[in-house]
């Protein structure tokens, strides 16, 4: 079970800020594949991965990062702080 979080327009597109996901995905990319296959709103949010960033357990990660042991995965657009 992984807690999946969405921020900014990813959150808006998917319609929820977070959800628990039952998954056997071994990498972030596999998790993205499972989510995108769910519904059109997920497919739309994950249509262009180059426009997305991912954090695993609150650390920026790549899409090929392993999920073994991860409790929290977040998807969001490039950050615009400062």
């Amino acid at each position, binding site marked *: 079970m992984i807690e999946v*979080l969405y921020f*900014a327009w990813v959150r808006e597109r998917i319609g929820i800020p977070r959800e628990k996901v039952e998954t056997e995905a071994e990498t972030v990319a596999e998790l993205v594949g499972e989510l995108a296959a769910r519904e059109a709103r997920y497919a739309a949010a994950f249509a262009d991965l180059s426009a997305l960033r991912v954090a695993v357990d609150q650390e920026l990660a790549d899409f090929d990062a392993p999920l073994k042991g991860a409790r929290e995965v977040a998807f969001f657009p490039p950050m615009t702080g400062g």
Partner: protein
Amino acid sequence: MAEIRIQTEPFAQGAELERFTEAVTGAGAVVSFTGIVRDEGGTLAAMEIEHYPGMTERAIGRIAAEAEERWHLSGCLVIHRHGPMRPGEAIMMVATAAPHRADAFAAAEFLMDYLKSRAPFWKREITAEGEAAWVAAKEEDEDALSRWQP
């Protein structure tokens, strides 16, 4: 050593700068940067900032720790707001204190470059007409990070 505050409340940059400066010892140079909501010639009504609680503190803590490793600093302050704010209000500030000015300037610019692109904040602008749009990340902000590579 760094003081990091993530908050919705407005803050007074001048009072923060005074307090920060009085608390550090041995500093000969203090640099501050304050980011302010521009009004874009009256077209911007408000700005809203979303963040990722938990990761925000962690990411900024890491950035500040790296600044303290790279430069000889006497102190380091980061305040960043989230939630709604109005044109003219301060969004965030960083302050750095050091024995010498080159360190204070470099650390402040480093903190800003990393906060822009590596701390999980997302800005949304609401126009005077009530339209809301997420601010797109700028390529130049990503490029700015390259100058800090070893």
